[in-house]
């Protein structure tokens, strides 16, 4: 369906650029401390475990489960269709991110739903990660 306004572009900062740059390429990534190996999200310049500034950017599996959700009804913004299915996804690697679910009726969203990542466009020709339920066969094989 044609939408007059696209979803807002991500706000890219010096500290978050690696995450959003990867998303533009269709990759879901996180920071990993090059010294102690700790994964972290949201991105930050220093490892809170060992205070190292050395950081690697690693690609994640894109798989996780819905930790929580809400169907957002109001107030509304023209870039979105309502209700907006907002979710917190706990990724298999132990990282939590805010996102949306796609490909599911609002009433079927539930905590614990297995999901995997895909990418949708935003304003300014960026893209951001959203999540689609893993189908039952695929889920059983995990």
């Amino acid at each position, binding site marked *: 369906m044609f939408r007059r306004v696209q*979803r*807002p*572009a*991500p*706000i890219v*900062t010096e500290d*978050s650029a690696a995450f959003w740059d990867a998303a533009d390429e269709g990759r879901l990534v996180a920071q990993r401390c090059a010294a102690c190996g700790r994964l972290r*999200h*949201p991105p930050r310049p220093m490892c*809170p475990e060992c205070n190292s500034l050395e950081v690697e950017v690693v690609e994640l599996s894109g798989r996780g489960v819905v*930790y*929580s*959700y*809400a*169907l*957002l*009804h*109001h*107030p*509304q*913004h023209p*870039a*979105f269709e309502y*209700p*907006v299915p*907002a*979710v*917190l996804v706990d990724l298999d690697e132990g990282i*939590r*991110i*805010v*996102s*949306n679910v796609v490909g599911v009726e*609002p009433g079927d969203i539930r*905590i614990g739903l297995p999901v995997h990542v895909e990418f949708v466009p*935003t304003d300014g020709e960026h893209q*951001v990660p*959203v999540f689609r339920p893993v189908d039952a066969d695929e889920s059983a094989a995990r």
Partner: protein
Amino acid sequence: MSSPAFGGIAAIAGIGQTEFSRRAGRSELQLACESITAALTDAGLRPADVDGLVSYTVDPVEETELVRSVGFPEIVYSSRIPYGGGGSMGVLLHAASAIASGAADVVVAYRAIRARSGASRFGSAKTSPSPTSAHSGTTAMQWCTPFGVLTPASWMALNSTRYMHEFGVTSEDFGRAVVQLRAYAATNPNAWGYERPITLEEHQESRWIAEPCIHLLDCCQETDGSVAVVITSAERAADLTATPVRIAAASGAGLFEQEIATDHYRPDLSVMDGSVALAARLFDRFEISRDDIDAAMIYDAFSPILLMQLEALGFCAPGEAKDFIADGNLALDGALPCNTNGGLIGEGYIHGLNLVVEATRQLRGTAVNQVRDARAVLVTASRTGAVLAT
């Protein structure tokens, strides 16, 4: 750890406010001037007596303009607590520690807000926040914007749904708290909800803001107005016009990865564990028993966080706030009369500080919904809090 030395040394000597409305028709600066001078009059003090100003972030009032307007001749102590409304009770910590240390003699804490009629409604959908949060503590806002998660209600809904899931809490459980708050507001002439109590059915029929946790009537009221509080030493306050209310305990407590409103990264979001830490500071370190608390004023931006804070603060076990409320314990004859002005939901959202004004009135014995023989009242806002006492 010994009890912090400033406990009980400082006292609230004056309170003041403007009317609360949906369109103040004048600037936040003017509103602040009006409430501050009212609070000074209440205390029997003059602007020349004031040497400290404390506020918290998301405050549009410039200190220099306030000084120039009210006519403070010399300010020696100024601070602004981070974390927005979550920092609102921190003004009591800053004022009390400044007074106890001798850094200041008379401190004014204030908040002026046009949450309803201002340039941007407080709860409106904002799509282009700056990457930083103006020190509101809501830094993860930048991770929410591309997903349409644009408002305080939507940020907190994610925590609230998890809380419901974990403990079998329902929207009706939140509604029973709102019915009590609106019953208090109905008898409070200052309140948005004055003479307008609601039923649980009306709560359930109000439209969804965020399903399955937040109906319209679960939300605080975006309000225009200002309140101010004058704090000085208990010794000096005893010689002033108003009945002094001591700051018996005050603290802040914020945990690793905790945020305000967008608090999505702590491991277990069904517990407000920052408030658990805050309660340990207030009760354990200051050696105050929860049994001594006669009433509580708890930051109720949305009803789910009222239940979650009642549990985190230790007034009921995790998951049991719904039963505590259903049993009538938030009422005047209950175990913990709570938000007796109607709270931010029923009276109005002066960014939390109106709860301090209500706590002061309770301890003076002048509240419209007066708790009998109130001697100690807890005021909290997620990560800051205080115990006020006669």
